[in-house]
C-alpha cells in the first residue's frame, strides 16, 4: 500500500514537471545582437524571446558593463548608437525596460505588450543621470 502511494506520488510529480516544461519550451529567440561599447567597456549578447502567449522578454547573456548610478535598459528607435550618445539631446524615441539589475551576468526584462520591435530594434544601456550611453546592441533577426 505504502509502495503504491509512493509510486503514484512519483507519477504525479513527473506529470507536473512535464507540464511546466511544455509551457516553458515555447519561448524562442526571435532577435539577437551583440553589445559594443568602448568608453564604458560593455560586452555580451541581447536576445528577444517570444513566449507562446506572445509575451516578449529581453534577455542579456555573457553580459558585462560598468557599474554606475541610475543605469537603465532601453529599446531605442535607431539602427545603432555611439558611445556616450546623449539620447535626450538627439531626441531618440525609446521604450524604458527598467533599471539595470546588475552590471554583470544573465538577466531578463519584460518588453511591454505592443512594443513595435521593427521600429525599436536596438538595445541601449543608458545612464539617465549623466545622459551617457554605456553600450549598444543592434538587434537582428534570429
Amino acid at each position: 500500500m505504502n509502495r503504491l502511494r509512493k509510486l503514484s506520488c512519483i507519477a504525479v510529480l513527473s506529470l507536473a514537471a512535464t507540464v511546466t516544461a511544455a509551457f516553458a519550451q515555447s519561448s524562442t529567440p526571435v532577435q539577437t545582437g551583440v553589445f559594443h561599447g568602448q568608453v564604458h567597456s560593455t560586452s555580451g549578447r541581447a536576445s528577444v524571446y517570444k513566449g507562446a502567449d506572445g509575451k516578449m522578454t529581453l534577455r542579456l547573456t555573457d553580459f558585462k558593463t560598468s557599474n554606475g548610478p541610475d543605469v537603465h535598459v532601453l529599446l531605442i528607435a535607431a539602427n545603432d548608437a555611439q558611445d556616450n550618445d546623449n539620447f535626450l539631446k538627439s531626441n531618440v524615441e525609446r521604450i524604458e525596460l527598467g533599471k539595470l539589475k546588475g552590471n554583470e551576468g544573465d538577466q531578463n526584462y519584460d518588453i511591454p505588450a505592443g512594443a513595435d520591435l521593427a521600429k525599436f530594434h536596438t538595445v541601449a544601456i543608458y545612464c539617465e543621470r549623466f545622459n551617457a550611453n554605456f553600450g549598444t546592441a543592434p538587434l537582428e533577426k534570429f
Partner: protein
Amino acid sequence: MISFLLKHKLLSTVAFLIVVGALWYLFRPEKLFINQRVNEAAPFAVDRDAQPIYTGRLSRKLHETSGRATVYRQPDGTLILRLTDFHTSNGPDVHVVLATGDDPALQNTAPGKALASVEVGGLKGNEGDQFYKLPANTDFTRYSTVAIYCERFHAVFGTATLQPF
C-alpha cells in the same frame, strides 16, 4: 570668508558634509569598484530543448551569401548546425565546413587556395532552412567560422563568425 568659517565651525562642518553627501549621491564613485552580479534563469526549459550556443550572420566572400548560422546543443549532448534565412549561389561540390578565423584562404579574392577545414556536410540546398550534424568534440573557440565552400574550385562563397549565444 575664512574668519566666518572659523567663527561658525559647526555650521560650516554641516554645510561641508551636505555638499560631500550630495556629490557622493550624484556620482556614486564606489560603483566604479563594486560589481553587482545577477544570474537570472532563461525564459525557457534549459534541459529539454535544443539550446542555441553559438550564432553568427553569414556574409558574402566570393558569392552573394546571407542568412544566419546557429549551433545548437541538443538535450542528449549532440551538436547541430542550423542555417536560417539562408541564401547563397548554387555551384558544384559545395560544402558546409568549419574553419579557423585566421585561415588565409578565407581572404581569397579569387578561387584557388585550399581552406584547412572540418567537413560538416555537402550543402543540401542553396536556399532555405537546413540542419547539419556537427562532430561531437568540435572546439568552437578554434573553429569559429562557418564557411560555404566549393571544394572543386577551392572557392569560399560566404562565411559566418560564430559568437557565443
